[in-house]
């Protein structure tokens, strides 16, 4: 048994490929927990960032700077009454949020956080990701239908039409990135997520800059389509609150509603991960081939630690700026403890064995975080598209451009 457990350690591959169920399960739990924590952090961050965009403070009451707000929200949602409309189809109503959640979490099986930091490496990785993430549309449709109410129904019809339409443009953009993986001597491309990043490493260029501007256009199409896929502003028509109250989840409350939210944020992280993997070099650190040598390696490996130290410093600035009134004593202490925690993590990341292992994951997460911030930024800036305009953008703008980019990429790939 112990042999079985340890047999994976030291292997240069993912646990799924090594066929080690124990370590695969460990990875699954780590990824599941990590993503859940990321969603919670994202929740807090979105509220704070959005608030600062809108000259508000955002949550300030629960914990220092509202740090415990997501937990308070979770407790509130869990203890809320679970209302099922009397005319609803109970079974479908019950299963719809679970489908969305499962679809968004299953995608993480193939996301490579590092060359070996993935649950498994399917050789149809990207196909699998697109397929599974497209399953969440089923949950949306079923939620809208099962509520047996007009607004959810319209919301779900809108949503499914939107998700299916943008999936096509998204797929075309993805195919043009996959074509780029085959531009090596043997001419064999790959659909595997790890393989795609390795192809970028071999060709010494992020696919974002490959055949400039073709790679960039494909990336831009994907970046737009992924916002539409995840039903976020400015494409948040399915839950356009001013039109359809809350779209397909109008009738949901409490825990089930929070499952929808969890699924939405999970899906956001998932599609951002696809974008990072395909175009932004996945786990590769910036400039891996121009800034080479052990000195640069050292510099880049120190960045994760410094990032956390900087976050800790920001927290301590907050501690200093906290009002001195005794009422704020606990908050000040809490924030100081939080900052100290961040600082300890930062110091831990300086340890050589840790910093070598953590680098890949850090760069991957940092790139994903940029997309997460973009999501918030979009939400603060843009009004909402109307449904026909949304369809027009999807079918008449993104799709033709994506097909054109695909064809040009293919031609260039053969010619060059």
């Amino acid at each position, binding site marked *: 048994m112990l042999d079985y457990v340890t047999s994976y350690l030291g292997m240069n591959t993912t646990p799924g490929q090594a066929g080690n169920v124990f370590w695969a399960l460990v990875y699954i739990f780590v990824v599941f927990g990590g993503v859940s924590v990321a969603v919670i952090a994202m929740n807090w961050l979105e509220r704070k960032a959005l608030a600062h965009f809108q000259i508000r403070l955002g949550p300030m009451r629960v914990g220092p700077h509202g740090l415990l707000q997501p937990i308070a929200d979770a407790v509130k949602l869990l203890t809320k009454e679970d209302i099922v409309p009397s005319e609803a189809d109970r079974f479908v109503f019950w299963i719809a949020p679970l489908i969305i959640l499962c679809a968004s979490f299953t995608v993480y099986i193939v996301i490579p956080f590092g060359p070996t930091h993935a649950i498994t490496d399917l050789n149809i990785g990207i196909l699998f990701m*697109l*397929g599974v993430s497209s399953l969440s549309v089923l949950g949306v449709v079923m939620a809208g239908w099962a509520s047996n109410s007009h607004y959810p129904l319209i919301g779900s019809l809108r949503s499914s039409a939107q998700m299916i339409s943008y999936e096509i443009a998204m797929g075309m953009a993805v195919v043009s990135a996959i074509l780029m993986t085959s531009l090596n001597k043997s001419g064999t*491309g790959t659909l595997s997520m790890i393989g795609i990043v390795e192809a970028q490493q071999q060709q010494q260029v992020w696919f974002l800059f490959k055949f400039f501007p073709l790679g960039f256009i494909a990336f831009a199409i994907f970046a737009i389509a992924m916002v539409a896929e995840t039903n976020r502003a400015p494409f948040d028509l399915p839950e356009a609150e001013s039109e359809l109250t809350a779209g397909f989840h109008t009738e949901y409350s409490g825990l089930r509603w929070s499952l929808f939210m969890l699924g939405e944020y999970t899906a956001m992280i998932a599609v951002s991960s696809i974008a990072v993997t395909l175009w932004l070099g996945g786990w590769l650190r910036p400039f891996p081939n121009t800034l080479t040598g052990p000195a640069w390696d050292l510099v880049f490996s120190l960045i994760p630690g410094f990032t956390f130290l900087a976050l800790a410093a920001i927290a301590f600035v907050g501690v200093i700026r906290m009002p001195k009134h005794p009422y704020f004593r606990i908050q000040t202490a809490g924030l100081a403890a939080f900052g100290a925690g961040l600082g300890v993590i930062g110091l831990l990341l300086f340890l050589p064995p840790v910093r070598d292992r953590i680098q890949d994951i850090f760069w991957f997460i940092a790139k994903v975080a940029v997309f997460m911030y973009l999501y918030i930024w979009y939400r603060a800036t843009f009004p909402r598209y109307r449904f026909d305009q949304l369809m027009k953008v999807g079918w008449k703008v993104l799709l033709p451009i994506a097909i054109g980019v695909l064809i040009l990429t293919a031609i260039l790939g053969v010619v060059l």
Partner: protein
Amino acid sequence: MEPVATTFFFYFLSGLTLLSGVLVITRKNAVHSALALILGLLAQAGLYLMLYAPFVAGVQIILYAGGIMVLFLFVIMLVNIERAQKEEQFNKQWLIGILSAGALGALFVLVYTKGSSLFPTAMAAPVESNNTQQVGELLYGQYMFAFEIASLLLLVAIIGAVVMAKRRI
């Protein structure tokens, strides 16, 4: 990579497939049928994976579960199912139907028992790693003509569906 617990997964997935098949043809509510069918399709994608056909499995998930079934759900929502649920679910010739299907099943049993020698019991283990590439080469090489015909068929189907479903042209 050696697959783990092949026997268990085979029986689990094929059982799920058959169970969902039974649910599809027995549910009153068409949405429940569609749900069961989606479950079956996913289980079948698992079976394809076990048969070292990952590309077909991926296509199954994207096209069948993500595309065709959404179409089905869409249509079920658009047509009035409340009334259809209250009506008689099975038609008058259901007995004959089941009997003929049973006869067909008996034929299958006969073929498989009599001709079991035709099927090799040992399975070759094809390399999985470049399955997609091989399928692609076949699809765009040997089966090019069939591929083009299939694409034409899809075009015709799109036009036909639009013509029939559109209210006024």
